């Protein structure tokens, strides 16, 4: 279980996260929605250790990980497919996937996971020798997710996986996210596409300029008037 307690984050003097708290239980899909600049990406970056919070605690299974390195967090089962994909453009698809398993030593299990990623994303298998930077946007997104799965995470962060994708691909990505979840991976999902995210999420939090203003089950928030007005287009 991941518990975020009163996290404050500043960029210089700008107060970006204002004491936010939330939890992600094992096995859930939790989504974080909110307008541009609300602080969603910052939240994920703080939990995976790329950004140091000014105060507050992050607990993973009851252990305080607020001060540990990003590397140690990966070891403990956190994996983060960042905003904008951030694949390694001048490496092949295969090399990208292998880097996802950078901290693992169990060669045979890595090979199994690689096979699973290829089964999930056959296009990556076809393109395994191709430089990742030459993939299409959708393929890059699949690579980013595949790479994040290669660490065999217990909890997976996805930051706007549907960004820039054609509608049918958006649907496919969400199906895949659901499927990854049913095979046992907890998911923390950040999305602009609130209606899709709320459909697959067990629970959701709404972030507004650095504060959590609403929370509930996916179904509850879909019915909420505020949400309908602000994020679901009426």
């Amino acid at each position, binding site marked *: 279980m991941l518990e975020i307690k009163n996290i404050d984050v500043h960029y210089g003097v700008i107060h970006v996260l204002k004491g936010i708290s939330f939890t992600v239980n094992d096995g859930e899909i939790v989504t974080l929605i909110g307008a541009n600049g609300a602080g969603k990406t910052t939240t994920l970056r703080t939990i*995976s*250790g*790329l950004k140091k919070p000014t105060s507050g605690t992050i607990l993973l299974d009851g252990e305080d990980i607020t001060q540990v390195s990003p*590397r140690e967090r990966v070891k403990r089962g956190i994996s983060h497919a960042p905003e904008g994909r*951030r694949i390694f453009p001048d490496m092949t698809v295969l*090399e990208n996937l292998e880097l996802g398993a*950078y901290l693992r030593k169990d060669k045979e299990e890595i090979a199994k996971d690689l096979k699973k990623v290829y089964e999930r994303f056959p296009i990556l298998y076809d393109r395994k020798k191709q430089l990742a930077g030459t993939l299409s946007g959708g393929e890059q997104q699949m690579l980013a997710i595949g790479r994040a799965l290669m660490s065999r995470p217990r909890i997976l962060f996805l930051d706007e996986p549907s960004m820039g994708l054609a509608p049918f691909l958006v649907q496919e990505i969400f199906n895949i996210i659901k499927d990854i979840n049913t095979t046992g991976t907890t998911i923390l999902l950040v999305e602009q596409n609130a209606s899709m995210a709320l459909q697959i999420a067990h629970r959701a939090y709404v972030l507004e300029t650095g504060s959590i203003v609403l929370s509930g089950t996916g179904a509850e928030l879909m019915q909420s008037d505020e949400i309908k007005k602000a994020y679901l287009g009426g």
Partner: protein
Amino acid sequence: MEQLLQQVINGISLGSIYALIALGYTMVYGIIKLINFAHCDVYMIGAYIGYFCMNNFHLGFVPSLLISMVVCTLLGIAIEKIAYKPLRNATRIAVLITAIGVSLFLEYGTMFFVKATSRSYPEMTGMMAQRFNFGNVVISMQQILILAITVVLMILLQLIVKKTRIGKAMRAVSMDRDAAELMGINVDTTITFTFALGSALAGAAGVLVGVYYNSINPLMGVLPGLKAFVAAVFGGIGIIPGAMIGGYFIGAVEVFVSGYGGSLYRDAVVFGILILILIVKPTGLLGKNTREKV
């Protein structure tokens, strides 16, 4: 024709030296976007280590080369840890100024210990002094050695960068530091390793130059350092094969310009090339214009 061939051979020797030094500039730039001005002084210190090994301890060429590479590796690691690591989040100009400071410190620190006068590498004897004549074209054993050692080191470097875990980490960090961290790569260790690799190559270049040109002094790194930097920019800074190609190109240009009567303009031509690249293709020969996908 014979003269041309002779120039090519001389160009390859000089180019090898530039290429070895350029690799260090390019790898460090690739990973932390820093022009490590102190790099040329690591090369100079490498030359001195080789000198002391041969002259004072009467070691052979190969042990001297290896010792110099090891000492330079340690020096490179020390420079990174002491001077640059504390500035990881500082502005680039602050780090650049620090680099110049480290460079001056090494130059004048060395001068304090070894005096400013030039020293001569011990005469090469036996096999090392052999020369092969093909008509009027002369190839010295030293030239063969320079090329052979450079090629071996470059192959080793490629293997490290392409095949090993730390090499993959190096490439990952130079492409996207945050993403590399998210893979669990230890970025600090990787940066230190990059300095170590580059410095080892500079150490080798120092000994090779000592053996080839004989004379060394505490400021010997400055000009070759600048030219190796031009070589790195020519090939595309941050790109390893670019530094190799750039090194040989600059070496060839220099030898040809002086060989055909222009030795006074030799350096001017090299820096003219720098200006030209910066105008025509600032990303260098192998550099590509950065593009992003949505």
